[in-house]
């Protein structure tokens, strides 16, 4: 039996094997598929006792909105979430890979994983790919050292600050953060600040839009509020709840019947397997 060639446990998560093939395809005149990017506004803020993460929900491919309601708040651990800006596939798979690695790390450490571990692992991976994995992340969480947010750029550098913004709408969001951030805010104030910052990105940046998602993380746990705010046109709002309870359509009768079948043939076969040994 040939060994499976589709899964090689020795290599790392990403493989560049198809690169040469893709170059050949482009030479033959085949157009590569359009990258789906999350032209984005993502923001994180530290308050007294936790962190608030916020993001918009628009994913664009070129000038087309590919997804009006995509989720940019990615799960890393129970105490840690990650905001992803940049190429949508890169952020999604990097964070999924990292969530798996963190789960294993938590089991081997027998502790809650601190935010700086996730940051170190993400940085080392992104640096290895020299910026080709276009993921601009903000990792936020609460661990034994307190609340922490760290931004990670695609080339693998990280920045530590009490307020951060990433994505195409980050400059608009940053103007709101610089104006209104104060140390030791309450959770409500921090949520309002993040909401205002994302709103600045949604309003002023064409590649950010749709809804605002919020995630609040404290020592007690994380709460993802999706959507926190919607800017839906009236026409698209559902007029009613269309999940109907049982019995809405009258049930006339219920019953159990045996299905008659004929046995066509029976066969006894010997398997090649080794007998089970005890």
């Amino acid at each position, binding site marked *: 039996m040939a060994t499976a060639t589709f899964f090689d446990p020795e290599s790392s998560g990403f493989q560049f094997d198809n690169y040469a093939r893709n170059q050949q395809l482009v030479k033959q005149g085949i157009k590569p598929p359009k990258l789906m990017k999350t032209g984005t506004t993502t923001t994180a803020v530290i308050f007294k006792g936790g962190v608030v993460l916020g993001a918009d929900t628009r994913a664009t491919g070129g000038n087309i909105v590919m997804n009006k309601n995509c989720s940019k708040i990615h799960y890393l651990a129970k105490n840690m979430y990650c905001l992803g800006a940049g190429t949508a596939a890169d952020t999604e798979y990097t964070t999924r890979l990292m969530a798996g690695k963190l789960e294993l790390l938590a089991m081997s450490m027998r502790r809650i994983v601190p935010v*700086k571990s996730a*940051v*170190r692992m993400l*940085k080392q991976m992104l640096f290895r790919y020299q910026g080709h994995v276009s993921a601009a992340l903000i990792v936020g969480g609460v661990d034994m050292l307190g609340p922490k947010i*760290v931004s990670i750029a695609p080339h693998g*550098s*990280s*920045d*530590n*600050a*009490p*307020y951060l913004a990433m994505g195409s709408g980050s*400059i*608009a969001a*940053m*103007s*709101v953060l*610089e*104006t209104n*951030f104060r*140390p030791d805010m309450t959770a409500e104030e921090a949520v309002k600040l993040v909401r205002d910052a994302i709103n*600045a990105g949604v*309003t*002023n940046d064409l590649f950010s839009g749709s809804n605002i998602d919020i995630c609040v993380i404290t020592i007690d746990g994380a709460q993802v509020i999706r959507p926190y705010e919607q800017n839906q046109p009236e026409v698209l709002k559902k007029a009613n709840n269309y999940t109907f309870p049982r019995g809405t359509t009258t049930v006339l009768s219920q019953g159990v019947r045996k299905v008659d079948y004929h046995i066509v043939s029976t066969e006894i076969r010997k398997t090649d397997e080794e007998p089970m040994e005890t």
Partner: protein
Amino acid sequence: MAHRYDINSALLRDLKVPLDGRTSSSHSATPKQHSQGPSVSGTAVIGVAFKDGIVLAADTVGSYGTLCKIRTVPRLLKVNKNTVLAMSGDYADFQFIEQHIGKQSIRDFNSDDGYEWSPKSLHSWLTRVLYNARSKIDPLWNSYVVGGYETETNRPYLGGLTMLGISYTSPYVATGFGRFIAQPFLADQVEKNPELDEKTARVAAIHALRLLYYRNRESSNKYQLAVVTKDNAVVEPVKEFETAWDTALMIRGYD
């Protein structure tokens, strides 16, 4: 690509252009060069319209590529008692426009018909000048904010203008990097309070410059304001605004 950190890009560009267009021998003649970038340049400018007039704000830095060459350079020009102009971009092109406006003002004075620049007419004329230059692929490398008080309609006038000749009027204008960092802030301020008074407009304009100082490489905290109301236009002297750096104490390390 590496130029940004070892050799100043503006210096490199200036050294490539011959000092005089003419050459000694015909067979080594260099063709006429078109504008490829600014030399000494000014960064973003801000304009805010309030109920009875407008406020223009600019910092006073004259950058030479990545070098902060001149710390105090006036980027606001009082054209007449109703009109003020603020520039960003190449300073030499601004001085050319300044002289052009001066000459035209003298011609208007000599015709003795009481005609003077209004903010709208200056904006319109400047748009034509910039657009025609760009149509010859030799632009004047500037963005302007034209502001003032229209005595004919009795309303404040505020307009923006880019080097490609894109021209528009708005209750708030920002050029360059200000479009990304100051304009969202000003938009929010004006939307919350459509009937701004002068004091609020001043505070908003200065805070917009503060945001630029925090996040723009080329900005500084020395600035000038120009305020135009029905009565007069005043370009105020150079001042400094305060900044808050206490959040820096919350930052340790990079991860």
